[in-house]
């Protein structure tokens, strides 16, 4: 490898992570601030979701009445559901309950919201965990691969394919994969119908959903890793490690990759948002009774307590994962004042 330091590196000897003018953060106060922000985010999410759900036309009673909107019956349902009380009172009650760990009960069925969440959590968790478990090596692997061959065929191939797949919405990809892999070739089961929560018992049924969930995050992640790796591999410190006889693989993975990691890890946390969107589509497409299904049903039924409970779960999840990602990113780029 012939690379003199007068290449791209030297002009930019301030590495990208040094750019912010925030002071390098002090550990604890950073975490505290992040947690505070996280709490505020969660509260804001819940309020926003509550307000929006309340603003939706119709309420649980109307939704339940469906195409039989007998006004007397709607009024009776409304009364039975306590919906005749003002919205803020219901919110206050619910919030008070929440402080005691009580998520309230569903309007539609009277069952505790926690049961809804518990029931839906398993399948979604399996999907998300599997997706993440594959996403990380796959995203990083492809990114590193493309970066190693920057500008060459492999790179072009990886870059074009990831770009193309990135542009395809989940539902379209899902339909395509099911048609080809499950229906035409019959290699995999087309849905997870009837497997209920026991998804792990039927690994074949998980292949397609996970594939669809993976598609877009893998693309964005690998593109990000590629960009980071291209920079890192061209950096003076990578050249230096190389110069001193550190083997190529070790330079790539032990020295260059950590630098490409920070933005990627934060992207990974953002992926949660995508996963959620994707999960909704994928659960519907493959009949997996997870949180996404619960959420959409609850919205349709105007089952406000369930929607709020889920908003809390999603909010907390998003906040915790982002916090984790920021901490990891900070660990990787100690100098970058990660904006709290």
């Amino acid at each position, binding site marked *: 490898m012939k690379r*003199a330091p007068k290449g791209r590196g030297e002009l930019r000897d301030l590495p990208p992570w040094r750019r912010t003018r925030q002071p390098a953060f002090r550990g604890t106060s950073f975490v505290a601030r992040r947690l505070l922000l996280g709490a505020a985010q969660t509260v804001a999410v819940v309020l926003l979701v509550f307000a929006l759900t309340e603003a939706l036309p119709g309420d649980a009673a109307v939704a339940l009445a469906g195409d039989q909107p007998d006004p007397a019956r709607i009024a009776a349902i409304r009364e039975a559901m306590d919906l005749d009380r003002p919205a803020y009172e219901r919110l206050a009650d619910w919030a008070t309950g929440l402080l005691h760990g009580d998520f309230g009960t569903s309007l539609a069925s009277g069952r505790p919201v926690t049961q809804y969440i518990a029931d839906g959590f398993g399948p979604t968790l399996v999907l998300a965990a599997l997706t993440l478990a594959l996403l990380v090596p796959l995203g990083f692997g492809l990114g590193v691969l493309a970066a190693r061959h920057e500008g060459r065929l492999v790179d072009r191939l990886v870059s074009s394919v990831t770009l193309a797949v990135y542009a395809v919405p989940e539902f379209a990809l899902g339909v395509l994969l099911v048609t080809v892999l499950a229906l035409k070739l019959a290699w995999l089961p087309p849905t997870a119908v009837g497997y209920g929560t026991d998804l792990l018992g039927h690994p074949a049924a998980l292949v397609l959903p996970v594939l669809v969930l993976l598609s877009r995050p893998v693309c964005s992640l690998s593109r990000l890793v590629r960009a980071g790796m291209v920079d890192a591999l061209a950096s003076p410190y990578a*050249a*230096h490690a190389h110069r001193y006889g550190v083997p190529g693989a070790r330079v790539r993975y032990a020295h260059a990759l950590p630098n490409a990691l920070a933005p990627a890890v934060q992207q990974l946390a953002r992926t949660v948002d995508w996963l959620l969107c994707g999960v909704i589509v994928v659960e519907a497409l493959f009949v997996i009774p997870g949180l996404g299904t619960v959420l959409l049903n609850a919205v349709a039924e105007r089952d406000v307590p369930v929607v709020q409970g889920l908003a809390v779960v999603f909010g907390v999840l998003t906040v915790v994962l982002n916090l984790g990602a920021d901490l990891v990113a900070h660990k990787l780029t*100690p100098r970058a004042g990660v904006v709290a």
Partner: protein
Amino acid sequence: MSRDPVAEIRDLRVEIDGRAIVDGVDLRVLPGKVTALVGASGSGKTTTGLALLGEYPPGARVTGGIRRTGEGPVGYVPQHPAAVLNPARRVGALLHDIARPQVRHLPRAERREAARQLVLHALADAQLPDGEPLLRRHPHQLSGGQQQRVVLAQALLLGARVIVADEPTTGQDALTKSRIVEQLEQVAARGIAVVLLSHDLDVVRALADEVLVMRAGRVVESGPVERLWTAPRHEWTRRLLDEQRAAPRDGASVDAGQPVLEVRDLTAVHDRGTVVLRAPHLTLHRGECLAVVGRSGSGKTTLARCLAGLHRDHDGEILLDGTPLPRSLRHRDRSRLAAVQYVFQDARAAFDEHRPVLHQVARTAVRLRGTGEREATDEALATLHRLGLAADLAHRRPGELSGGELQRAALARALLARPRVLICDEVTSGLDTVTRRGILDVLAGLAGEGDGLSLVLITHDLDTARLADRIAVLDAGELVEQGPAQRILTEPQHPFTVSLMRTTERLETGTRR
């Protein structure tokens, strides 16, 4: 000691896009000797030095040969050691990777400990005796000197027979410089060949055994350092070595009346309330040139920034012609903004890379003096010309100008404000000797010009400070001494000033032998 070279370059020619950046260079690197490559920036020093490592710029066509006879690999200490230290990894990471092959013959269980010992040993050799805690730190947690020593330790750990040191002393104050010189001496004393790439003649003279003077990719002269210094043969060498310094100013144009700028009880803090500077009293008279001297981190830049209104967090008063200046330049009106101008250390970073230099220079007159666009451009051209920058260069973008040229443009930009006070923050550091002298000459000519322009030179370099009428010395945020330049330079009183003076002298006279 053997006189066989450990590495040799013969008739090296490196071409990029058909243009030779190094041509016909011969170089013999002897063990235990310091070979210096001297020349202005762009003379091909770094390319030659890296050729020893077998590295060339991308897209280069190389002819000629490099022969390494010695067993060991070649080490490299770049100008900015931070650039080769991985920001995301602890200092120990690369060191351990370097040590690993050397312990491979040991049983697995012993490898880790053996590697650790090797690393610590190398750190100790690089004058980092207490290496253990250092290994767990990230590069940014080290001082510049520590970073440099860590990089040196990497080379020593590698068992390098040759170490190429690229501009190791650039931008350093005298005390640091002398420590680096000492360090490289020790390296050479271990029988390692040192190739020093530098434009710092004091250091070269103090350190080198053999000197090659380069210009435009060619070696114009080479020989033992004593011979070269006493009897330079080539015209360029003579120019390079020209010892003539800007003579201390006679102070003729200094107006002893009311100070144009006065600092009273200045205390500057940084974001978390740490006091970084205390300056009880400091004055600047009309037409006077004041040098503020100190090591890096001594608070001299903060002082300059306070004066310029770029650092708001300070108490105390700064008076311009007896009236207090607003702390932030945001609150300074046009005339007061124009009155105190500031020239940045890094000229390249201080220009907008997207617009032609001329335009940026002319804007000062437009914005601060309300001059018309045309006149401003004319004036800018004239000023640039006066400072030695040709019109065709002025029309280019900053990326196409050299550091020295940009620094001239930066001076012109400030001068177009017709300032009363011009603050120059380390404007010559990072420039090679010839360029630096050019800038210093310009500065010397500036003081007292127009309506009695006063200069504040922020510098770590006593050579530059010699230009001044008065010198103020800062150490660790305290103003420790101030007085006429002559007195400070000849009879320093504060112990810190004394040590600064001594070290500088020692370097200049080359007391190594």
